[in-house]
């Protein structure tokens, strides 16, 4: 009897909570956000969450969309696709129109599949998947979906940006990448674009390393030096990147490091002053861009985050995502995923840094400007209190990275 009482109380509570959730759903536009918020990669999700919150507050202050405010609802996925699918289920149960995810292409692939199935079965409760950083090219090519919108350049485009930023006098490069899906695709794409755009460049070494297993990169540096390389190109992230660059600086190797992720949380701290003028990173945003272009409004926006938080505003580019959402929801005129998705595709927006961007209709891939930053002294906004920060070396415009796609989009 007591057990049954307990169950009925629990049921009652759940009903009440569901009722509350339904009531508040009327007032805000909910965006489910799922990324690792615990475990070894928690720093990524945690930093993203705080930056998005700041951006959302800003967008809401500008009126939100359809008179409603955006609200971010975090779900921890512990870097597991299965947990991301549980987050998707909770989001659809609460009628949320958007789910957002930034790290891990394997998780993104599971989410695309899950969203496709859900939207087929529940035409009156559909959801849009906003991809803010899972960069496997397949996701907008073979695997492309009408419900998936990617707001970051994919790995092949980033590789092209990196190759385009390679100075003319660099003719010998060495590739080091992590031995798994992402690292291998970076390796493949870098080679493709080096052959295509820079036939004068010779690849003197090409190596895959086991993911997260190497504690001392000095032997690799010895090998790289012996090969006579002038530049090292790498898609490594986390300790694999930090330790690699650290070992190179310690050995005094005369190298430039072209990276994908040196600007992200933890990178500048690990690299330190020794990386001055040596480390470059391919990035969607840097706090010094607005200073360099004299864009006062954008600078005030990013400075506001610095004043509030202790860490860098590396992902201010997420603002573009919410500006797209704001415009698309207003254009659709209703919180209807199908209408919003149709409004999003092909949409063009001038982003807050003043560059033209387009959400490509054919594959739902955002095409926008990208920057290559050099780690050096004397910039206005330094990174992680190191005294050094990212100065823009090259700005690659949207038209230069408009790569073809093989997507066969099915529209409802």
């Amino acid at each position, binding site marked *: 009897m007591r057990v049954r009482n307990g169950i009925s109380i629990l049921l009652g509570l759940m009903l009440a909570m569901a009722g509350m959730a339904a009531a508040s759903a009327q007032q805000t536009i909910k965006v489910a956000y799922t990324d690792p918020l615990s475990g*070894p990669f*928690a*720093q990524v999700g*945690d930093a993203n969450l705080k930056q998005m919150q700041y951006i959302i507050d800003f967008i809401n202050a500008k009126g939100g969309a359809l008179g409603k405010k955006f609200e971010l609802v975090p779900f921890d996925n512990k870097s597991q696709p299965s947990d991301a699918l549980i987050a998707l289920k909770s989001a659809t149960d609460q009628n949320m129109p958007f789910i957002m995810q930034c790290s891990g292409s394997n998780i993104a692939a599971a989410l695309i599949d899950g969203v496709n199935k859900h939207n087929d079965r529940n035409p009156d409760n559909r959801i849009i998947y906003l991809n803010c950083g899972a960069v496997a090219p397949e996701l907008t090519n073979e695997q492309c979906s009408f419900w998936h919108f990617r707001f970051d350049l994919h790995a092949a485009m980033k590789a092209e940006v990196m190759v385009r930023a390679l100075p003319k006098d660099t003719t010998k490069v060495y590739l080091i990448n992590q*031995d798994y899906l992402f690292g291998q695709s970076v390796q493949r794409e870098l080679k493709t674009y080096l052959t295509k755009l820079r036939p004068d460049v010779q690849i003197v070494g090409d*190596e*895959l*390393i*086991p993911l*997260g*297993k*190497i*504690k*001392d990169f*000095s*032997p*690799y*540096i*010895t*090998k790289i*030096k*012996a090969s006579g390389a002038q530049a090292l190109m790498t898609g490594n992230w*986390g*300790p694999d990147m*930090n*330790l690699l660059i*650290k070992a190179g600086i*310690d*050995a*005094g*190797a005369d190298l430039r490091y072209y990276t994908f992720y040196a600007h992200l*949380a*933890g990178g500048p*701290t*690990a690299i*330190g002053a020794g990386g001055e003028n040596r480390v470059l990173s391919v990035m969607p945003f840097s706090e010094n861009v607005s200073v360099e272009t004299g864009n006062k409004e954008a600078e005030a926006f990013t400075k506001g985050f610095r004043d509030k938080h202790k*860490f860098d505003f590396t992902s201010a580019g997420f603002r573009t995502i919410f500006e797209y959402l704001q415009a698309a929801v207003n254009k659709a005129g209703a919180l209807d995923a199908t209408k919003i998705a149709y409004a999003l595709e092909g949409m063009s927006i001038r982003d807050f840094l003043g560059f033209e961007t387009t959400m490509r209709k054919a594959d739902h891939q955002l095409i926008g400007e990208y920057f290559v930053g050099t780690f050096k002294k004397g910039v206005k906004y330094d990174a*992680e*209190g*190191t005294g050094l920060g990212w100065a823009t070396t090259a700005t690659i415009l949207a038209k230069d990275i408009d790569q073809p796609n093989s997507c066969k989009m099915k529209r409802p």
Partner: protein
Amino acid sequence: MEVFVVSLLNGLVYGMLLFMLASGLTLIFSMMGVLNFAHASVYMLGAYFAYTISLYVGFWPALILAPLLCGLIGAAIEMWGLRRVHRHGHVAELLLTFGLALIIEKVVQMTWGLLPVPYRIPELLDFPLFRVYGTQFPAYRAFMLLISALMFGAIWLGLRRTRVGLVIQAALTHPEMASALGHNVPRIFTLVFAAGTALAGLAGVIGGNYQVTEPAMAFTMGPIVFVVVVFGGLGSLTGCFIASIFMGLIQTFAVVFDVSLADLLAQFGIAVTASTPFAEVLNVTLPRIGALLPFLLMVLILVFRPRGLMGTRDT
């Protein structure tokens, strides 16, 4: 030649760092039979303590204070943790240290945050000591070699030439007899555990700025240290030393030799093409699996010589 000399030096430095970590673990493991999962976590604590202490009083006091703190933590773990669960057998002890490892990681994340902390090498040692064929050899690496060599000497002398060392060795092999002769064996256990964790702390102090001080550093360093202990053999400091240097060199040199099994077969006149069975596996080059070689060696030694290189009894 150039590559050989530089790799040799790098292998030695890495091997000596491994030894600093493994020596404490092998002492604890051989004496108490406890596979201390929290050992690498104490290594991480050592690095974080040193970072915090060096913010206030500089690196040199931290070099002494941080290991002492770690030793105290070790003593506390032994007295209030391990001793209590000891009578429930080794599984309970194993689980206790495993739980501690998880707790320490979480506490570190909550105290110092999820990002790496800027723990840098002291300015006094921040210069290239000499150049070998154009590659700088940082003074700090020489300092690491020096510290670990001193440590090896001190432990060896302490165990072989002092009265305490004698009692420890006796308690190591015949705990009941040592106890019957009036020695306080539990206190010796505490002492050894504290000393072992202090060594791990010391390794953390000098390893934390050589590598990167971040919450994942315990997790990445843990497995390889176990390999060294098992490979070197139980109860043998010399075995542990040899195993550490060996692992350091193996990982360093594996990177340099770009060979695969296919190249080896080619020596015997067998050409590997895409149609050969297992061509994928045969074509994997040594650098790609270099970091996994120690684990392969551990499996081999467990199969063919379970007591390890210089062990006195079976694992």
